[in-house]
């Protein structure tokens, strides 16, 4: 038995829910976990989200869509000012972690061995553990080679963290032609072999 509810009420509920949640909320979650007691269609929820987005354009915060749903973010232009209030220093990540993450993001699904082949060094278990604990990386299967190594892929939370909707929004990889050593050296090699 569902209850009738006005558009205004739906909008207020969604707005309140988005502000209360530390994670982005998808239309499906809003429908099934927030509004299930009410007579609300998916398109009505989408419309409310649009209304909210429009409304907040002129405010200090913005409604943003990321991989796993919608969330309110401080307007980018105010970020530096607002950061003055926070005492926490943003975390820095090691190159080893970033390179491992880049390989998983761009070459997924990928095994640890394959990551090590590209980087030329062993990948510490600590890095994989950190990435999994942060919910950025998950095991998506096992490669059918001896040892059946785990294959890693990125999660929606990884995209959420960078406020991206999909992997396609990641920066493009450096084209081979722009590699600093690549062409001239390769050409030299080729010519000496001729």
């Amino acid at each position, binding site marked *: 038995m569902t209850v009738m509810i006005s558009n205004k009420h739906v909008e207020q509920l969604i707005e309140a829910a988005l502000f209360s949640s530390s994670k982005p909320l998808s239309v499906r979650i809003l429908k099934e976990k927030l509004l299930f007691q009410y007579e609300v269609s998916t398109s009505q929820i989408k419309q409310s989200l649009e209304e909210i987005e429009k409304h907040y354009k002129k405010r200090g915060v913005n409604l943003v869509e990321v991989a796993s749903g919608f969330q309110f973010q401080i307007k980018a232009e105010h970020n530096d000012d607002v950061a003055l209030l926070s005492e926490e220093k943003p975390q820095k990540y090691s190159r080893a972690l970033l390179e491992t993450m880049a390989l998983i993001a761009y070459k997924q699904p990928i095994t640890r061995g394959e990551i090590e082949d590209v980087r030329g060094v062993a990948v510490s278990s600590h890095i994989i553990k950190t990435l999994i604990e942060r919910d950025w990386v998950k095991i998506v299967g096992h490669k059918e080679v001896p040892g059946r190594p785990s294959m890693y892929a990125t999660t929606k939370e990884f995209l959420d963290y960078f406020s991206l909707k999909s992997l396609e929004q990641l920066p493009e990889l450096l084209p081979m032609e722009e590699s600093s*050593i690549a062409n001239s050296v390769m050409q030299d090699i080729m010519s000496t072999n001729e």
Partner: protein
Amino acid sequence: MQNSSNDVDVALINSNTTASNIGQSGEMLQQVLPFAFIRGEAVVEKPQDLFIPPDALEIILESFEGPLDLLLYLIKKQKFDILDLPIAPITTQYMTYVELMKDVKLELAAEYLVMAAILAEIKSRLLLPKQQVEEDEEDPRAELVRRLQEYEIIKKAAQNIDELPRIDRDITLAQASFSSSFVAKAQEADVDLADLVNALQGVLKRTQAFEHHHIAKETLSTRQRMSEILSSLSKLKDDHFLKFECLFDVSEGRHGVVVTFLALLELLKEQLVECQQVQTFGQIHVRLKGADDRYDQ
């Protein structure tokens, strides 16, 4: 945006920024920016080739992400010639490290040694007369260059990822809290009827208390009716008594009447209610046992 080039404790400075030497006179001079610090002492020189000063070994190993990273650096910054590898000195130098590495991170160092070995192998094959190289065999340098390229692409991708706006550094989430007085109603756990039966059977196993109280449908309907009678009797206030026949609902049929009567008998037996009949064949009244005493207190 962050500069992600190095995350080790040592300060690594790009070769291009290395300043001029300290001047002779007292004038203000730009200070020499050290390449790295080893036990508090600045290392001004960075590796000019694959040779690494023994003291700096550990730091160099930690400063680069691996032999590919170091080689990439040497090629880009030092114009290290991959086509004409200065193998002889490199090999000698790397071999002297083996002893030193016993005290350091042997595992990490091994990867550099492997690279040195690869370079030495490449060099030795380049020195072989051309005709001895099989035709279908790839130039060993091509494989190395391919690996370097692949690594360079990922190195750049990692830098790009590090520069993406991210939560905690460039993105702040907007949140509101519940008022501090609000306590969310705890959600209720699901219970299966089987859970309940299992629980009771658990009790039965542990105790003899039910030995004389077999639980059957009949007793259960009686028990339910007992609760109902008690509930309606306890609602009475001024008139503590209820007429006997008021307890029965004729519309329930014979079964219902039987159940009510059984419930009443059970309540009498358990001394929870009492019946009064002022004269023979007169009106029977029912009330909660002790209701009278309670009100008299």
